[in-house]
């Protein structure tokens, strides 16, 4: 290996990586959407009165938090077709991207549910009582009073989760998904060992820029949600 470094290659390879960006964003957005839905159920299970559901949710969250996302990805990719075949469903023809989205949704849900739960618990109980006292139903109280406040509390953590999720999607290339990282692998194999460092620096810069954008967007949202919110003291 030589000691030459070509910064121009970073600029040259960038457009090629950008071509794969839509797929990376698709995986992130869909995983986040499904993850949030599943997280809502998990948080409800943990806060609910059913003991069995609470224990199941606790175990699920512990498993997801205690194992590497890479292992989870392989379990879904190799395990899910095997399990579903056992009950007569063949999913071998499914696109690899689907397995990636399933994994990152399952993974994201565990982290998101903990954020939701703690945000919900951080809203003052008196708010719910106040909503009831003006005649709202439990659902109205949840949607109009509890949820907006819990969302504002959860927002910074949700932003962090979105960033982690984005970074985790770089694992999808291991099952053959051609997202940004997958694209880099393809370029890497075709380039016969030349400009490898420059290539992966370009990949890093792309992810860095995406994280920066998410961070700024969340900060803007946070400001919008804090508007009109004043504590008792000021």
């Amino acid at each position, binding site marked *: *290996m*030589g*000691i030459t*470094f070509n910064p121009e290659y970073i600029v040259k390879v960038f457009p090629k990586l950008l071509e794969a960006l839509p797929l990376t964003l698709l995986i992130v957005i869909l995983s986040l959407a499904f993850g949030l839905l599943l997280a809502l159920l998990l948080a409800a299970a943990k806060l609910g009165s059913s003991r069995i559901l609470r224990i199941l949710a606790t175990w699920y969250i*512990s*498993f997801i*938090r*205690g*194992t*590497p*996302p*890479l*292992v*989870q990805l*392989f*379990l879904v990719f*190799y*395990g899910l077709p*095997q*399990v579903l*075949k*056992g009950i007569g469903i063949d999913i071998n023809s499914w696109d690899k991207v689907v397995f990636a989205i399933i994994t990152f949704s399952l993974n994201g849900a565990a982290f998101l549910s903990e954020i939701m739960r703690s945000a919900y618990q951080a809203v003052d109980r008196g708010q719910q009582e106040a909503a009831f006292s003006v005649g709202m139903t439990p659902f109205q109280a949840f949607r109009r009073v509890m949820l907006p406040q819990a969302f504002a509390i959860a927002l910074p953590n949700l932003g962090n989760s979105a*960033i982690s999720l984005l*970074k*985790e999607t*770089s*694992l999808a290339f291991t099952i053959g998904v051609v997202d940004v*990282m997958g694209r*880099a692998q393809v370029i890497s194999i075709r380039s016969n060992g030349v400009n*490898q*460092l420059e290539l*992966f*620096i370009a*990949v*890093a810069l792309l*992810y*860095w820029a995406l*994280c*920066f954008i998410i961070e700024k967007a969340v900060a803007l949202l946070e400001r919008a949600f804090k508007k009109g919110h004043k504590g008792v003291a000021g």
Partner: protein
Amino acid sequence: MVFDMEFALKSLPKIIAGIPMSLLISVFAILAGLVIGFLVTLCRMYKVPVLNRLAIIYVSFIRGTPLLVQIYVIYYALPMVADWAGMKLGLPISSADLPPLAFALTAFTIYSGAYLSETIRAALSAVDPGQMEAGYSVGLTTWQTFRRIVIPQAFVVALPSIGNNFLGLIKGTSLAFTVMVIEVMSNAKIAAADGYRYMESYVDAAIVYWLLCIVFERLFAWLEKRSGRYRSKSA
């Protein structure tokens, strides 16, 4: 195809054999990361010219890019650095001498250093500035005050976060297979490919990681309780 329990049990010892390597990388990265994190925090606290800016970029870069990409960058950058040091500085190293472990240790240390610097900064700012003054007032030097008064208190504050970082590292070592280090995940991949039994091997790997995380979670919870003892006494 059904779950082959016999295969799962048979390959479990092979996969368990990767634990020492995963732990070696994690422990090294957390200890070296604490040193780097502390230096980075000092640069930022005392606003050391140039270094302060570099520290901000370093932490932002590591937190804003996937660990996997960082490993690749190190994998290709380290040989260049080694060759450069060998040729230009005359040091007795070259890229050919670098063992796979060197890539993993470098990548994971740089990674944990950035995250730990945030932990350390938060912990140091949680210690009352009066503690520093109190140290000076009894005639301790800055370093003595740090070592004997501030760091022990900051450590207690930082412990939960250090624990989380450690668990993150254990899970992160599953990526070390990309630089040919044989740890838990690599062994699972080998077992899977040997027996064409993918799910069984990865279920094994998942259980191993899960148990490791639970054990270390308990250990850190115990450490936290132990090191926080002085608090209840003074309260």
